[in-house]
């Protein structure tokens, strides 16, 4: 818990230490300078206060117009100090924006007014407290109380997007936040360094329940984390499901949505998707494109924008009504996991991983929250 009487909030990640260092450095330097100015003001106001009985009107003062030396000094010195802040800050920002290559990805989708967290292993969590919003329990799930669980000491990269308006996924104890922009993928990463439970806030105004779009992140030991991924303990009433890893579910969606009809190596109707993630490929009309998360999403949502060289622009677009943001994340996870020779054919039936139910999951309950007019 963050105690507001402490000077510093908890530092629970590696980046938090860096961010605090620079904040306090700037505060200290500017504080000293500011206090210096105040001291000068105080001394001048006392020492040079008007002593004549007539408090208005002329008084003998020296005609001081300025000093080039001082002007130069207090131009150059602050500039130098400010640029040192800039340099240090840029270094910290660089770290914050570039996750280590072995960071485990966790997908987060923001929507009014909750966060939907998806782990590659299949664990799902919903964060946000909306009990005040929707007129009581909706399908028994009116009070979302999910907790995002993270392992101590292992880097984690959040792959973030939004379904509707701009949100922001912020964790003060980690001193990190990044906007969740609809139509875009943004990233943030953390290396949790302290066990405990910390707040998650939405940090970009998004409507009525912006202040209720909050949750918790729990940092646990690696062993506990593995147990949680397998569904062996829950963080809230009936919230966390393990119905197979994201890649596995994505594979099922790939079949269900008939992607396999064309993206079948034996059919040669569409590009083969094995091992394409983060590779550069030529596009129609010239130029190359890197198959990033953003490109993979756009290729599903707006496939005719950047078509692979040598292929016709015939792929239909899959809007949010056909495949939701979380489903899209699963399909992308599947594509990212696809190794050479692993493409299935249409008759393939895959064996689900351990822990996944063998029955189809119950139909998803819609929660009817605010959306487009």
């Amino acid at each position, binding site marked *: 818990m*963050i105690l507001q009487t402490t000077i510093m909030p908890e530092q629970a990640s590696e980046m938090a230490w860096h961010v605090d260092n620079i904040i306090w450095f*700037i505060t200290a330097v500017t504080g000293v300078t*500011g206090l210096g100015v105040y001291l000068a003001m105080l001394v001048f106001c006392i020492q040079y206060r008007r002593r004549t009985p007539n408090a208005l009107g*002329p008084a003998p003062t020296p*005609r001081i117009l300025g000093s080039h030396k001082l002007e130069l000094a207090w131009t150059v010195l602050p500039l130098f100090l400010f640029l040192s802040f800039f340099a240090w800050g840029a270094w910290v920002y660089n770290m914050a924006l570039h996750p280590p290559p072995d960071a485990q990805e966790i997908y987060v989708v923001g929507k009014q007014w909750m966060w939907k967290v998806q782990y590659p292993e299949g664990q799902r969590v919903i964060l946000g407290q909306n009990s005040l919003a929707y007129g009581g329990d909706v399908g028994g799930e009116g009070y979302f109380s999910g907790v995002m669980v993270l392992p101590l000491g292992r880097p984690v990269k959040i792959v973030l997007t939004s379904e509707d308006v*701009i949100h922001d996924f912020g964790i003060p104890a980690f001193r990190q936040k990044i906007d969740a922009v609809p139509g875009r993928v943004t990233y943030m990463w953390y290396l949790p360094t302290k066990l405990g439970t910390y707040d998650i806030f939405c*940090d970009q105004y998004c409507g009525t329940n912006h202040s209720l779009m909050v949750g918790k992140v729990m940092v646990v030991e690696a062993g506990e984390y593995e147990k949680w991924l397998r569904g062996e303990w829950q963080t809230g009433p009936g919230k966390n499901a393990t119905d197979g890893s994201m890649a596995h579910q994505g594979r099922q969606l790939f079949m269900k949505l008939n992607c396999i009809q064309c993206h079948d190596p034996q059919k040669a109707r569409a590009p083969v998707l094995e091992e394409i993630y983060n590779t550069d490929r030529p596009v129609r009309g010239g130029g190359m494109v890197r198959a990033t998360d953003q490109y993979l999403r756009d290729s599903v949502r707006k496939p005719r924008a950047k078509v692979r060289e040598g292929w016709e622009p015939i792929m239909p677009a899959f809007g949010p009504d056909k495949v939701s943001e979380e489903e899209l994340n699963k399909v992308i996870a599947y594509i990212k996991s696809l190794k050479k020779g692993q493409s299935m054919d249409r008759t393939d039936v895959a064996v689900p991983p351990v822990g996944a139910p063998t029955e189809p999951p119950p139909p998803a309950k819609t929660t009817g929250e605010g959306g487009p007019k």
Partner: protein
Amino acid sequence: MSTVIETPAPASHEHPEAHEHVSYLKDGYSIWSWLFTVDHKRIGILYLVFLIVFFAVGGTFAGLVRLNLISPHGSILDNDTYNKTFTAHGVVMLFLFLIPSIPAVMGNFFVPMMIGAKDMAFPKLNIASWYVWIIGAGCAIWALLAGGLDTGWTLYPPYSSRFTHTNVVPGVFGVFVMGFSSIMTGLNIIVTIHRMRCPGMTWGRLPLFCWAMYATSLIQLLATPVLAITLALLMVEAASNALGNPIGIFDPSLDGDPVLFQHMFWFYSHPAVYIMIIPGMGVVSEILTCFSRKNIFGYTAVAWSSVGIAIIGFLVWAHHMFVAGISYYAALLFSFLTMLVAVPSAIKVFNWTSTLYRGAISFQAPMIFALGFLVLFTIGGLTGLPLATLGSDIHLHDTYYVVAHFHFVMVGGMVLAFLGALHYWWPKMFGVMYSDFWSRIGSILVIVGYILTFMPQFWLGYHGMPRRYPNYPPEFQFLNIMSTAGYTVQLAGFLTILTYLTISLFNGKKAGPNPWAATGLEWMTPSPPITHNFDHTPRVVCGPYEYSLNLTQTGERADVR
């Protein structure tokens, strides 16, 4: 050692009527003589009256916000109403108060007088700017009160165009219209300063208030049109959504880019904050010199720093977007440029402090406000540095740290400067003096209340409390209550000021032409001034702050009169 040379004006310019020696307040008593005036002084008063009203409206919204925040779950408002309230507070305070404030009142009233002119360059444009402002303000207030607007004053799409069900189009239209008033005022001031300076008034002898007004007007002129087109595009998108056939310009579901809106919006809105502070800096230069009886330390540096802030201020807008998903290289560039824009402000603070050195300082209300500005603006400016720095901004962005920072510069800076200007020029504008004792009490109450309101918010922000949150974790409650308590102290201060200023209009001691023994040309006229300001065009022989030599700009003795 009077070196005044009187330049008798050609006879064809003098109005033959007897009113040439009547004060501007008495030159016509009917409501029409006020509503159809072209006298820059009356126009300043027209602005002043409504500014006070709008400040009270914005302050009421602030009170509701603070009252609601004494409980972690919203004590008096539901979420939607709270969202509308903080939006209204922002829109009213920024567009109906801060942006016009000093330029439209003291700029209009005093720039012509300070340069020895009879009026602004375009008097009819001036009164037109007031009407445009009133119309825009009316539209905005109607939108805010009748149904409300809940997007935040920053209006980010797609929330503002597709998801909200509130009065986006009329509210935005009101702001759009008010922008034209801002452009008209800025244009008028630039042309006036360029073309209508009296003989001897070189650029190097211009009062720093005029330099500040000039720099502000440059921004008003060049930045506001970009806001206009941005709002126009947003209105098209919002209206098309409301009418059922959505067009997307910034809406990603329709191939638009919401970050493009942010770039265009902040391209205006960052320079806008300099519109909101540079005039205050100009006022502080006037007051500090007069009440320490000294020349400004570093006239050239202070003058050029205003222009420097205006110019560099156009280059830093994306520092509002460091976590919005812009590229790393863009972020680097804007952080670097923001460090540059901080330097001229620092220069000013050092120069002002040095002006006090070996002065003869007295502490009437204008000086208390100016010194308060110096203290609070310094905090505001310095706390901008962690926000300009990339690594720290990630944590502090969109928290109460930002709220505290901008209130320090806007309220601790500009509002104090506005009050200081009002107190400094009150005897000139109305010919009466207010109570010295109560004015000192009022100023101190406002300053103390202000500090109590906003200091805790730095803490809250650093601990992670986000902006625009009616519900917050309970451990933040104590500091929120303290902040609300500060509001009540401020309120007491403002009410005190309103009271004694109003009383002075009826009961105040008559003020002479130059009660502060100041040196500017505006003090060389009767209090209140005659309609045409000067009997004869003044001739300037020296710089604006020759307090040490006891010389006004026309070379006469700067005594109390």
